[in-house]
């Protein structure tokens, strides 16, 4: 699903690489936590998977494709097979919940009939059935994140990338979100989640990858968050 071979990333005008010689593999159906302090390279790691950046050295394979060889115009095609969730939800404030979810389908040219069918379905799945016509601003943070997850999942991606999805939420709400991500994972979707949330990582007991100053320092099946920070 994801393979990094000796990947390094140096941003222009910076001497210290954001990632150094990282090699790892994530199999289909896995649930992976990506941990590490701020500036450890987590975001760069995720940006490389989404091909918002290209690596400086090494090779990144996502969904069986070598991203360095993927031409620019094929990138959208690749991204359609990924779902993304962010700490700040990234919902469109002037569109309703239903429209926000439908946006992901309109953009890839799904028919109106399909959209009308799948939007309520996926909103039910994330526990927001019947809130289609609400505006994002009227919802709580947890609910907004559920909308974002619904949008990420509505096209049934093979891989879900989550960048600190619980970073803005209280512990109880976070648990709800994690249950949802776990359920999505059980449908066969691979989940890679960057997080600072110690409790969640410790409770879930999933694979943990730790980055420190751009290096891969730990890759542990059924791991815990690690050192006290």
């Amino acid at each position: 699903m994801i393979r990094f071979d000796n990947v390094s990333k140096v941003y222009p005008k910076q001497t210290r690489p954001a990632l150094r010689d990282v090699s790892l593999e994530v199999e289909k159906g896995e649930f992976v936590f990506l941990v590490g302090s701020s500036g450890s390279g987590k975001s760069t790691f995720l940006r490389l998977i989404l091909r918002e950046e290209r690596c400086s050295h090494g090779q990144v394979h996502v969904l069986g494709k070598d991203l360095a060889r993927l031409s620019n115009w094929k990138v959208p095609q690749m991204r359609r097979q990924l779902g993304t969730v962010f700490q700040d939800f990234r919902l469109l404030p002037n569109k309703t919940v239903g429209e926000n979810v439908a946006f992901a389908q309109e953009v890839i040219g799904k028919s109106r009939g399909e959209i009308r069918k799948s939007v309520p379905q996926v909103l039910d799945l994330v526990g927001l059935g019947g809130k289609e016509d609400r505006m994002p601003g009227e919802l709580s943070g947890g609910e907004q994140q559920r909308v974002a997850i619904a949008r990420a999942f509505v096209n049934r991606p093979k891989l879900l990338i989550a960048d600190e999805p619980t970073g803005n939420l209280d512990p109880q709400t976070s648990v709800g979100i994690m249950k949802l991500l776990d359920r999505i994972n059980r449908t066969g979707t691979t989940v890679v989640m960057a997080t600072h949330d110690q409790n969640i990582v410790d409770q879930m007991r999933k694979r943990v990858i730790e980055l420190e100053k751009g290096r891969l320092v730990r890759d542990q099946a059924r791991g815990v968050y690690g050192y006290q920070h």
Partner: protein
Amino acid sequence: MRAQFVLSEIGVGLRRNLTMTFAVIVSVALSLALFGGSLLMSDQVNTMKGYWYDKVNVSIFLCNKSDAESDPNCAKGAVTDDQKKQIKADLDKMDVVQKVTYESQDQAYKHYKEQFGDSPLASSLTPDQMQESYRIKLKDPQKYQVIATAFDGRDGVQSVQDQKGILDNLFGLLNGMNWAARAVMALMLVVALMLIVNTVRVSAFSRRRETGIMRLVGASGFYIQAPFIMEAAVAGLIGGTLACAFLLIARYFIIDHGLALSEKLNLINFIGWDAVLTKLPLILATSLLMPALAAFFALRKYLKV
């Protein structure tokens, strides 16, 4: 891609930048109106030049029968064949002359018809009212005076005209206006393009959240850019339509009504509606494509896909 979705995005975008959109429309309209005006002015000059203007420098008009009655220069009667031969022979001997062409009454009638077409004056004319003439191309156009002294006042010659001298001042004026119009047009065009680039930049910036999300869910580059490009194209097209309307109204009020030059200057042949109408498609196409291209190149810089 669904048309309705794209159209609604365009509407939202144009309304969000209403003042900027307005500025784009006005500048495109002005620059293209000037563009069309300059094209029409060239047309007008060409219409006025007639058949001989670019081909000869001096014309020797010969007396015809009606001149013999009315014109003191022709008091000795219409030109005879001998006189014509003599004139031709003298012209051929002169060094300054490059080429001489004889124009018969019938040819003169034909050229006149071509230039003035169906005007009332033209329809009342008959070929024998036209003058025969020698049309002379000089090696050095400044040497007009040589011909004038040699032939002016000779029997059978009604007048010697420096063809360019008469019209050059007027054409000089028209040409000057034309260049001024083009200069202002170029300036307005630059303004319009800069406004479009800026509008697109503001538009791309104010929608960076949407476009960012579109990228994440895998929208193609074209899909993300299309609303911006079409916004610019729509604004441009509105401007182009205004420019077209302006040209039509301008022709109506300057030539037919209002200023009514066609009545006041009925010896001048003015451009017709067809001249205006044939320019409109060009103006509309320019108004559509130019902003779209400007937006396209602006997006490459300001909208990461």
